[in-house]
Structures are given as C-alpha cells and as structure tokens.
C-alpha cells in the first residue's frame, strides 16, 4: 500500500516536472509562423546592392523598391514612391516618395537615402547593378523627391521595380561586412531575426512597418533549405511547410489528391533554349539549323517532360512578358520539312553527328535531349547527348577553336527585370568576348533592331515591341537557336494559405505580408 502511494507520488512529481519543463511553452501564445521550404540555399548574398541569386525570396520581404511591377496588367503598384512622372524624351524621371516610412534601423526613408542606396549599388558594380546603366545622375530637389537623369531613354519604372539591385536601404547602415554578418536595414514588413549559415533564415515582423499590422498577417517567416524534393513534398503534405516549389512532376502528382495542398501554376519568364554553334559545320549552314528546328518534338516535350505545365515557345521572349507576340514565326515538328531542308543544304540522308551538352543533374534537359535524339535518328543524324557540370559545359563553349566547341547547347534564360531585352541581347547580340552568346551569332541588322528598341522603351513602348518582334523574326529566319518551351512555375501551397499571388516578375518570391493562414 505504502509502496503504491510512493509510486503515485513519484508519478505526480515526474508529471509536474515534465509539465514545467515542456508544458510552459505550449501554454504560451504561439506566433503565427509561415514556412517556405526552398530547394537550395536560401541566401548567397547578404548585401542588398550585390544581390543576384536565391536571396530574392526573402530580400523582397525585407527590402522594398520604389515601385512593384504587375506583368499581367503591365501596371506599377506604388511602394516607396507614391507617384512618378517622366519627361517627354524619357530621359528625366521624377519620383515622389511616401512620407513617414521608417527603416528597420529607426531612421526615416527619404530622397537622400534613395539616392545613396542606388548610387552605392551602381558604384559597387556587383549583381545586376548594370540595370542602372542608363542613369547619369540622381538629384534630390527636396526631402521626398528624387529625379533621375538618364544618358538614354529607358523604362526606368521597370528598373526601379526590379527584384534585384533596386532595393532601398538605410545608407547609414550599409557596411558590406555588417550586411554579411546577417543584418539588414530595409523598410519592408519583415526584418532578419536570425539565420543559420546560408540554409535557414528567420524573419520577424517590423512593428513600425508603414502599412501597419491590422488584419491577418504572419508574425514570423522561416525560409529553410530542403534539397530533397520528396522531403519538401512530405513537409507540405503534412502541414509542416506553407509553400514550396520546383517539385518534379512525380511529386506534384503525388500531392494532387491531398485536400490540404493546392497546386498553383502560372506562366514564368523562364524558357529553355537550344543554341546552335553557328561557326562550326554543319550548323554554320542556316538550312541545317532550320531543319533541326523542325525536328524538335515540341508537344511531346511539353506533355512528357513538363507534364503540361508549360507551352511551346514562340520566338525567344517568353509568353506573358511584353515583347512576346503571335506575329512571331513558330516552328512546328515536321520531319518531312526537315528532310527537304537537309537535302537543299547538301545533307540528304543525314549521316552526320552532333554533340549536345546539357547541365548534368537537370532531368528536364536530359529528357528533352533524349526525345530529340530519337527524332533526329529518323533523319540518320546521330545526336550525342552529354551531361556536364555547368562550369565544364561553359568552359567547352568558350574554347578558342569553334570546332572544338559543342554543336548544341541547352540553356535556360530568365530576365534580370521584366524586360525582353536581355533575352535577345545576352544570347544573340554580337559579342567580342564570349559570355552567354553561346551560338556565336552576329548580325548587325539584329543588333541594330534590339538596340533601337531599347532606346525607345521609355517613350514609345508600342514601337519598341514592334522592333523586338521584328528582331525575333530575324532570329527565326536565321535560326541561331530556338527556344523550346516557356516554363510554368508550379508551386505546392498549403490549402489554408490565403493571399498568395504568383508574380513572375519576382520569381519564387512570396510577399508574405499579403498572406495569412485561415
């Protein structure tokens, strides 16, 4: 009897101890925490001037830009600038700033801070700082007005709304090493609370955020690297994550029946291109390149590789981005047409070998190559498919002797900001030193068209689009490369997450302030 009582007392004691140790935190009000399971490191750069990589996903919640771009409506939402106007020649842009905005450091955001932020980004010359190339000087006539003087007309509203290198920060807290230690000095709704290496960042709400905190919002956001796709799928399925992306089709299909998860897909500004070596036989022959463009099984790829989450490209500028047009020629899959073109080029019956290189580990690229290989085999063309680490792939593409380079280079492109120019310029404009023009194409007419278009985008967007369309038709005619498909972003989102809007101008970014859990 006494032993039983002692045992009971022991049990009560242990229970109380456990309750004290572990129960207390459970009883306390828990903050609303959102979890973003990301496929790779959540940050590479910490400095808002240098940013050019994965950190876009959290930086756009910590730092703000003057405007935010809506590509679906082609309109701008005021953020740190309430309004703006441009001169008739498109070379002077005036932004009127929002008053009463505070940095996380406690200092007020004003014109001097905007000028200093942008000048610092330009002067550091890192990341996507070249988007400010048109700017010749910045003036601050009063505390809340910023005037940009440009060397040439450009769409500065798109530049100030860029997801990289356009952030405004407190210039009094802008030491590079200070940023690298995991600090921030933005104006955004969240600020950096803690981080673990480059794999995990916790943001916490900034109480003095200019939009205020009434309504439903998350208190904290955790950005966590989860490289394994199956683990990300398990996390979202079990409610351990609110948002994830870059899941293979098999994982997406596994989630389709789960009522706690919704699959969101929107057009992206990213496409996959096959760049032909225009300096090496037989692809130095335009007719052979055209023939190859007719052999790509576009629809099979969209269905078989992308699971339907994408579309065949038309031209080079992806669907949804201005500069895309139905007026641009689109290749179809036609082995018969390819045969005719090959015969005309003097390669009737095929009989040659081509080397295609892709980035090893990219399953989509590999499968595209394999599908294409089987089509080319019908023409007696032997396609060697070689997966290589990106550095080796790029190294081969830059060999001094064009004959030692690959024949076909599979390559993704996406813009640094919502502008079609980089698609056309980076891969097809004449280059003195090879960088991304991995088709080695050079056509003065094409160069002139895109540069004229760039110079009038700020004043005459319609005419700029016409020129970009014309330039893309030149590309379709010369076929130095062909865009195979425009990707769709496919996200797995917890069904209870509300307020999420996918904006391809800010790839992979969730604006967490707008989101809440129901």
């Amino acid at each position, binding site marked *: 009897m006494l032993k039983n009582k002692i045992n009971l007392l022991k049990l009560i004691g242990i229970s109380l101890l456990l309750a004290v140790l*572990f129960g207390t*935190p459970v009883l306390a009000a828990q903050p609303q*925490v959102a979890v973003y399971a990301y496929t790779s490191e959540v940050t590479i750069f910490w400095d808002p001037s240098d940013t050019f990589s994965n950190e876009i996903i959290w930086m756009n919640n910590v730092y703000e830009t003057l405007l935010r771009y809506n590509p679906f409506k082609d309109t701008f939402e005021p953020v740190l600038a309430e309004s703006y106007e441009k001169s008739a020649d498109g070379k002077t842009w005036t932004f009127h700033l929002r008053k009463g905005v505070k940095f996380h450091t406690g200092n007020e955001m004003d014109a001097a801070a905007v000028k200093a932020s942008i000048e610092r980004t330009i002067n550091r010359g890192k*990341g*996507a700082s070249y988007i400010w190339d048109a700017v010749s000087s910045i003036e601050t006539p009063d505390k809340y007005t910023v005037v940009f003087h440009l060397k040439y007309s450009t769409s500065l509203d798109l530049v100030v709304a860029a997801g990289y290198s356009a952030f405004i920060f407190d210039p009094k807290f802008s030491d590079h090493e200070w940023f690298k230690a995991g600090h921030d000095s933005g104006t955004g709704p969240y600020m950096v609370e803690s981080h673990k290496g480059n794999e995990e960042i*916790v943001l916490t709400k900034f109480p003095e955020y200019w939009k205020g905190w009434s309504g439903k919002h998350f208190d904290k956001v955790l950005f966590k690297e989860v*490289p394994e796709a199956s683990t990300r799928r398990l996390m979202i399925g079990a409610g351990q994550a609110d948002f994830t992306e870059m899941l293979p089709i098999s994982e997406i299909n596994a989630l389709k029946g789960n009522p706690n998860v919704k699959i969101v897909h929107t057009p992206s500004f990213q496409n996959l291109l096959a760049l032909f070596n225009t300096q090496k036989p037989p692809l130095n022959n335009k007719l052979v390149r055209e023939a190859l463009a007719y052999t790509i099984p576009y629809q099979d790829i969209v269905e078989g590789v992308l699971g339907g989450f994408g579309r065949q490209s038309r031209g080079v500028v992806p669907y949804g981005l201005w500069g895309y047009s139905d007026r641009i020629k689109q290749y179809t899959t036609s082995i018969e047409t390819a045969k005719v073109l090959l015969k005309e080029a003097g390669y009737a019956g095929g009989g040659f070998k081509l080397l295609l290189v892709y980035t090893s580990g990219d399953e989509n690229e590999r499968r595209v190559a394999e599908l294409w290989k089987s089509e080319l085999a019908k023409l007696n063309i032997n396609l060697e498919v070689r997966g290589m680490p990106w550095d080796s792939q790029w190294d081969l593409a830059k060999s001094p002797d064009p004959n030692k380079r690959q024949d076909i280079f599979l390559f993704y492109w996406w813009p640094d900001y919502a502008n079609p120019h980089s698609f056309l310029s980076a891969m097809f404009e004449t280059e003195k030193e090879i*960088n991304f023009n991995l088709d080695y194409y050079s056509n003065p007419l094409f160069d002139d068209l895109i540069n004229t278009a760039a110079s009038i985008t700020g004043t005459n967007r319609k005419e700029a689009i016409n020129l970009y369309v014309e330039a893309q038709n030149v590309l379709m005619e010369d076929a130095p490369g062909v865009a195979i498909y425009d990707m769709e972003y496919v996200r797995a989102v917890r069904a209870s997450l509300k307020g999420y809007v996918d904006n391809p101008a800010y790839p992979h970014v969730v604006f967490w302030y707008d989101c809440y859990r129901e």
Partner: protein
Amino acid sequence: MISYIIRRLLLAIIVIIGVSIFTFLLTRVVPSEPAARWVGPHATTEQIAAARIELGLDKPIYVQYWKYITSFFKGDWGLSIRTHQPVLHDLVLYFPASLELIIFGMFIAFLIGIPLGIISAARDGTAIDHLSRIFSIAGVALPSFWLGLILQLVFFKELKILPLSGRLDMMTDLLHPVKHITGMYLFDALVTGNFAAWVSALSHIVLPGLTLAAYPLGLAVRMTRATMLEILKEDYIRTSRAYGLSETKILTVYALRNAIGPVLTVSALTFAYSLVSTFLIESVFDWPGLGYYASKAIMTVDYPAIMGVTLLVSFIYVLLNLLVDIAQAFLDPRIRIG
C-alpha cells in the same frame, strides 16, 4: 624522446604541405569559372574580369598558392565562392555539428562495443560469442548510407518514434532557439537550461549517431575480443584465478586494463576516420555539418572551401596519428629508438 617528437612533427608538417599543394592543384585542374560563380548567374564579362582580379585569379598559379598558404597560417583561409563568407567562419559554423555527431556516435560505439567484446571473449565459442561476432562484422561491413536509410525507414516511417532528419524540430528551433556556445546543441541546450531544445536535439541525433556508431562499434567489439582472448591466456590471469579472484574482477580490472591500450589507439584513428565517413551520413540525415558543407563545395567547385575542409580534416588526422605515435613511443622505448 624529444628528437623523436621533433622528427614526427616535421613529418606531419610535410604531409600537410603536400596535401595543400596537391589539393590546390587538383581544384585548379577541374574546368571551372569561380569568378563567374562569385558574381552571379548572369554576370557580364566586365564583372567576371573584375571578380578575377578581386579573387586573385589573374595571378600565376604559384603566386596564388603562395598567397593562399601564407594567408592560411595567418588565419585567413580565403573566401568561399558559394557562401561569400570566410572559409574559417564557415568551418567554425559547420564543424561543431559534425563533432557532436562523431562524439555521440563514438560514445555509443565504445559504451556498447567494449563490454560486448569482453563478454564475447569471456564466453568464447558460445552462442553469445557467435552473435556478437556477427553483430560486429555487420557493423563494419554495412555501408553507412544504407544503414541510415534502413533506420529512417524503421524508426521514422514505420514506428514513427524518431525524426527523419535535421538537428532540431522546426517549431522548437523557432520558439526555443539554442543559444550558441559551442555549436553542439546537446551541450549548449543543457548548459543554458533549454530542455525543450535538448530533448529535440537528442531525438534528432539518435539515428545518425547510431549509423555513425556502427563501424567503430564493430571495430571495438572485434579489437576488445581479440586482445582480451590473448590476455586471458597469460600466466598472471591463471594465477589470479588460482588465487580465487572473482571472474568479473579478473575480466574488468586485470585483463581489460592491459587490453584497452590497442583499443584506444584504434579509437583515436577511428575518430579521425569518422570525420570523413560522416559526410555520407550527413547527406542522408540532412545534418548541417562539415560533410554537408564539403559536398556543396564540391558540387559548386568552391575551391577555397574544398581546400579548407581538406586541410582541416588532414590536420586532425595527422594530429591524432601524431598523438598516438607519441603515446606509443612513450610506452615502448623500442619505437622511439628505432
């Protein structure tokens, strides 16, 4: 003795320098463009050229090596191309997680392995001995990544009693973050009284810890058994038995004391070996340690990080070897004279 230590130290320095030259050359032979990686995915040719100068890649390779090695000894191990942080900073960040895992694994291995070895030797030829030998051979022979996956399958998926991966439960990490003291969560959480985090850290380390323990455990059983069997045949053991001392006392005091030397020598080397074997285990269990850091560095040809990890592991390996050699020389004059 002093001349022996000096000789061994000089040899150790030569080994480290040799490893550094070999790794440095190897990382440069692989086709790579670290300057482009440094800048970002759409770097312009001007930015890449500027980054080459910034990183010193425009200099001849022997100049780069000399700059690297002289800075290395001043505590500057270069900047990681991937993380943009000083390599030494990164290693300080990631190494404690590996160290914690290795200490935990080794502790389990020797806690179970040595008694099992003793029992096996004492019951030589019996069913217990056969079972223990099978157990030890399996521990040494099973690939760690396979064992890790099987443990995950059993304890996470089927039994649902242990977590799949990571070092802490996500919500515990957010609500009860571990204050950084050593970077080893079990220790830090305990000394700061953060018991919620301690429990979570313990539950997370069990599976990777057991996976890591398998090899040294098997080794400890086999080594203990073999040396104990030798010693149990010695005259002084027979004499002890004749004096009527208890079998337990003979085994744990008289026999084990003489048998433990070789086991501890092997344990020091196994500890160093575990530094590398943990790389695979960390991948399986998403454990953010040195192995995780190294595999990312290799995938991105982050040569300063590869150099840093290689030199750190080599240094520990050489240091442990040195300590073992010195200890053996101290105990056995034939070694230091020879």
